[in-house]
């Protein structure tokens, strides 16, 4: 191990501190804004700490909108879509990791290509499809499209997780008379639980955050998700920054909790494939 010069150590602290400030400041600012009173938000000079901390903005957002409905809708869509994705990606990933078969390369390639071409290039036809299926303005349309959008990436990630588990484990179980599918669920899945959880959380956050498809498919009040509703607010008239920052904070909190909870594992899992190529 090399010793560090004192100037090097200092530089390091300064740089790392700078990055931290850069990353945190916008979040700090939106939280602070959400805690200021209506008047204080629009008064000069700008305060970096509220004179009077108030939760009125949080009350306001529930008063002027059905924010609880949007939260519930976002939650339902994210939950169902990510559960579906995990189930589908688990089966697909398992097969891709364990078997070699004709067409495997093509399937992998077909998945990878979707990562290069974003789905919104087909957004006009998708809109027509959804309209013909009569599922515009329904949560189902979002569950469906989010599932589809996440399947390729999650399947590839899952298959990476399976590859790291030795084949011998399920072979032993199958020798003992387990069928392949019960070996999968009784032996492999329990070991993979952290990986499955990470994939689920990744998918959940992606669904929670998605905007474009939601804006395209949804404009009825009762089925709006949080981004659609907030988008309508900032497009309509002068933005009520107090209420909007409260809404922002509320909708970031779940992401933040999930990220803090499994950030290390998520980062590890998601970089594994990329670094090893």
């Amino acid at each position, binding site marked *: 191990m090399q010793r560090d010069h004192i100037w090097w150590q200092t530089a390091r602290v300064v740089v790392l501190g700078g990055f931290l400030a850069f990353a945190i400041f916008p979040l700090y600012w939106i939280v602070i804004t959400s805690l200021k009173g209506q008047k204080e938000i629009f008064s000069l000079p700008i305060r970096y700490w509220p004179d009077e901390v108030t939760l009125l903005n949080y009350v306001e957002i529930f008063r002027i909108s059905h924010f609880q409905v949007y939260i519930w809708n976002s939650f339902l869509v994210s939950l169902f879509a990510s559960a579906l994705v995990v189930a589908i990606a688990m089966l697909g990933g*398992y*097969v891709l990791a364990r078997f070699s078969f004709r067409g495997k390369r093509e399937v992998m390639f077909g998945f990878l290509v979707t990562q290069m071409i*974003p789905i919104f290039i087909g957004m006009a*036809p998708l809109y027509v*499809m959804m309209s013909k299926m009569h599922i515009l303005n329904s949560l189902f349309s979002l569950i469906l499209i989010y599932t589809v959008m996440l399947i390729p990436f999650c399947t590839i990630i899952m298959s990476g997780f399976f590859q790291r588990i030795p084949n011998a484990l399920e072979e032993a179980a199958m020798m003992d008379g387990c069928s392949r599918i019960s070996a999968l669920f009784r032996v492999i899945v329990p070991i993979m639980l952290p990986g499955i959880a990470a994939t689920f959380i990744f998918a959940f956050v992606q669904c929670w955050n998605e*905007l474009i498809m939601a804006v395209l498919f949804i404009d009825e009040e009762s089925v709006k998700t949080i981004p659609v509703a907030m988008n309508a607010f900032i497009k309509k008239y002068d933005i009520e920054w107090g209420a909007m920052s409260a809404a922002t904070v509320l909708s970031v909190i779940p*992401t933040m909790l999930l990220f803090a909870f499994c950030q290390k594992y998520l980062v590890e899992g998601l970089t594994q494939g990329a670094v090893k190529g």
Partner: protein
Amino acid sequence: MQTEKPIVVAKEPFVSPPKKPFRLSREGAFICLCLLPAVLFVGIFTYYPLLRGIIMSFQNYTLFNLLDVRFIGLDNFFAVLTSPEFPRVALNSFYWVAVSLFFQLLLGFALALFMRRRFRGRGIYQAFVFFPWAMSGFLIGLIWRWMFNAQFGVINDLLVKSGLIAAPIPFLADGKWALAAVIIANIWYGVAFFAIMILAALQSIPEELYEAAAMDGAGRIQQFWSVTLPYILPTMLVTILLRVIWILNFPDIIYAMTNGGPAGSTHIFATYMIDKVIFGQDYGQASAVGVIIVLLLLVFTVFYVKATRMEKGGDF
């Protein structure tokens, strides 16, 4: 309404499992069954719309006139390419990708280098500096829109206080500044991704390489050029390619911050296309924009892979 053929999944290039000697063993059946949902979903709701979009780009397909959908050759492409806003959109897209990417890479690289050595509290530190990566583009756009506010925005306040500018600038209402503003928000978002990838690559460098280099008398800076950089180059090249594709197709921040405005000065291809779908309702032209994006990316990818000799590295 024109009637469409039922969706034929077998059209997809990769759907059909083993074909010729069709003896489906138990194993084969198991494979098919497990892959079926994934392949079916992606085939129907990704590949079909993509192909349909390509067809649409050659059609006269507007929501005002659905009875008159017909093929019109390259008219949509001509209309898009010769529209007065197109040069601006193309140039914006270039700046949006190039400038964002440059700073994301530079800052992400620096962050990763400084995070490589363990230090107390690195786990918590990482949770904070990587968090922007988990946020939604829409909320990021909203937050920065508020920070860039002309009158009550904190950025103007800081700039005026530090004496860098004399009077507040209406960043998002001024065509000269708006693009820079959305790019800054995008940089804030993307630094973490590069840092995560490069950090992972850095941590896979065996310590012995550094020891050997130090033994040969290489200083810190020499070590960086002779050990660190060559070792992580493959990861960086792949990451850069993926990011170029991804940033070009990332409309969320712009959509929330300026929605392409003022006067179209911050439209990139992606937001321009969304605009055409949601407000213009000209699906033919929108799809033509989509096809142009894909062609650009295709050409770029081919050149990039050739120029960086990525295929020889076999690291893709």
